[in-house]
């Protein structure tokens, strides 16, 4: 499980290939690859320019503002930050148990977020690679190409995404900057009209989600050699699971498994996450590398997100998704699935589960109730953990007697996956680049591995659709030999 190719022995004699930034992921990601004269790979690193400064942004603010403010940390999953912060602040107001309406409204909001995020990722960011091929014609390898060749697939992606956004709008109050969740509960429930509007479409969403699971399952069955081996590495994995061991993306306790699927810790109260997890700093990366303290830095790194969650739980508490989970586990065999492309399959199972949960909640009378907020003995410290679309999200705050935040620590999903993503790109570099001339198609293999994790490196500014890819080949003296660049409009330019 230990990392190789992290540091070359003699980097001064090697060529350097840079993929900067990685396309179809959010924010800034850069991959550097060191090659020798025979194109043999000696070092591969994924550098992530982590969103920095959010702790200072939050410190000094009144605690009740935080669930709204943190939505501005990330334009991709603001709802996840909103809910994780609200859960942490529940401890500040002493709300040990939310009202039934509050908890179910928050869950509804969360499953809306899961649905829209997973739909976007699969249908619009990854399906071009999966349906056309990793090194297919780049001019077609995008959502417009999908819309031309698979119009129904593209349309379903848009409508699933739209539906998830509508769930968020009705539960959070607004499309963005929602205020639905507050410390101790929520500030609104669903009106009958809102509930009925969502009920009109939810059955179609469940059906389409199920079709999406079948689509990606079929890909695995048709080409197991690729899907089981591409970028595959063995790793520990972690998530919260429900108190009954079932898949629960909103609340539960922390459970971790080793690379063989054996439980290494379970039932850990996430208020104590800091006793379980530490973060290592490496001098070549801005982003920290979390690890399990008990196992140390070498053996303690782990993976989070859909691939972990679907294999970490004992069951999924919705019938259609549970059937699909069992198929997934059966396909994997005795050992857990570690292949990064398995993320897509697991992600679609979660999307189906989210759709089923939304349907279930819309049929629950509590969702239109009026008992919204509770409180108790005032606290000074709180941790909120949620399974965001990309994985475990931790918010930790301390609040002083003047109600101001004095300490804030966030560990986001992409940070948990830092080492795992590095491992994936190293395996792909070994499998596909080693000894070959570098081409755009080969470099896209690296990006496919990264995209499987759906990393969100956003700091809530928008990139205006521009994600150029630039590759530079340098000799040992650092002189540029040639460049290969892909502009925002997808055109390729080669020099040298």
């Amino acid at each position, binding site marked *: 499980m230990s990392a190789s190719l992290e540091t070359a022995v003699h980097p001064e004699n090697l060529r350097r290939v840079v993929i900067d930034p990685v396309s179809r992921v959010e924010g800034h990601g850069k991959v550097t690859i060191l090659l020798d004269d025979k194109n043999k790979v000696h070092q591969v690193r994924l550098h992530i320019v982590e969103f920095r*400064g959010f702790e200072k942004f939050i410190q000094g603010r009144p605690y009740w503002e935080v669930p709204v403010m943190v939505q501005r940390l990330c334009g991709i999953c603001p709802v996840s930050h909103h809910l994780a912060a609200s859960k942490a602040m529940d401890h500040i107001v002493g709300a040990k148990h939310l009202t039934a309406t509050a908890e179910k409204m928050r869950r509804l909001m969360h499953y809306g977020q899961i649905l829209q995020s997973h739909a976007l990722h699969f249908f619009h960011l990854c399906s071009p690679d999966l349906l056309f091929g990793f090194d297919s014609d780049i001019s077609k390898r995008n959502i417009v190409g999908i819309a031309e060749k698979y119009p129904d697939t593209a349309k379903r992606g848009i409508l699933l995404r739209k539906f998830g956004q509508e769930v968020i709008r009705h539960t959070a109050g607004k499309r963005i900057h929602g205020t639905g969740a507050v410390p101790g509960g929520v500030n609104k429930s669903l009106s009958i009209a809102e509930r009925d509007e969502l009920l009109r479409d939810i059955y179609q969403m469940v059906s389409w989600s199920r079709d999406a699971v079948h689509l990606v399952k079929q890909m695995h069955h048709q080409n197991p050699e690729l899907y089981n081996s591409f970028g595959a590495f063995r790793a520990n994995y972690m998530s919260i699971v429900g108190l009954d061991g079932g898949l629960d993306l909103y609340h539960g306790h922390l459970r971790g498994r080793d690379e063989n699927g054996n439980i290494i810790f379970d039932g850990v109260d996430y208020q104590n996450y800091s006793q379980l997890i530490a973060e290592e700093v490496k001098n070549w990366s801005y982003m920290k590398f979390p690890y399990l303290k008990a196992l140390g830095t070498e053996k303690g790194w782990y993976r989070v997100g859909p691939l972990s969650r679907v294999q970490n739980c004992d069951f999924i508490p919705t019938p259609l998704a549970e059937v699909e989970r069992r198929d997934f586990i059966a396909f994997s065999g005795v050992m857990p699935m570690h292949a990064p492309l398995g993320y897509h399959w697991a992600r679609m199972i979660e999307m189906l589960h989210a759709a089923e949960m939304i349907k279930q909640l819309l049929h629950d009378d509590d969702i239109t109730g009026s008992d919204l907020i509770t409180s108790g003995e005032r606290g000074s410290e709180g941790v909120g953990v949620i399974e965001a679309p990309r994985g475990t999200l931790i918010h930790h705050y301390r609040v002083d007697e003047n109600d101001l935040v004095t300490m804030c620590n966030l560990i986001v999903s992409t940070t948990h996956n830092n080492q795992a993503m590095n491992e994936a790109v190293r395996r792909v570099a070994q499998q596909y680049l080693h000894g070959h001339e570098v081409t755009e198609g080969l470099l896209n293999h690296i990006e496919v591995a990264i995209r499987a994790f759906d990393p969100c490196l956003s700091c809530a500014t928008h990139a205006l*659709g521009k994600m150029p890819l630039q590759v530079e080949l340098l000799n040992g003296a650092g002189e540029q030999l040639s460049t290969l660049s892909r502009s925002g*409009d*997808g055109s390729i330019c080669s020099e040298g």
Partner: protein
Amino acid sequence: MVSPVLICAIGNESRGDDALGVKLLRELDAWLKAESRAEQFELLEEFQLQIEHAMDMKDRHLVLFVDAGINVAAPFLFYRAQQNDGPVLYSHALAPEALLKVYAQFYKEAPPDVYILCIRGESFELGEGLSPQADENLEAALEFGKKLAKQPQRQIWDNYCVQKPMEDFMRREDNHPA
């Protein structure tokens, strides 16, 4: 029945001048209400554009995206978005031009007339307010926005457009911090 004109501001108000679009939208909203012109317009705030925003454009007469940008002369640039006929790369966020293409694919019809008001920003740091220069640019852009709102007609808006927008300036790497 949707309002004939959609004005969508893109940006994060907690990141310095990235708030330009949102601030303009809110000022414009107040002005439209005071002038009893609000019923013609729907105003949206978004962090970033995504595929489902194509659905917000359906049945509109005019669509205006208001955003901050770096690589544009002060105080602002106003131009018409052209559907990109070439391949478009996609991330978690889309350019307005890419949205036109998504619209055309989704609805199998030509998208509405879409314009972009890009206001020059200087600093995009988390937790910062508007820079003094951006404040000035906002003032000028707001007056221009009011002018557009008084005459929400394609021919008139076309006359205000720069003849040819800076080549692909919206997609240049240094145009906007990610």
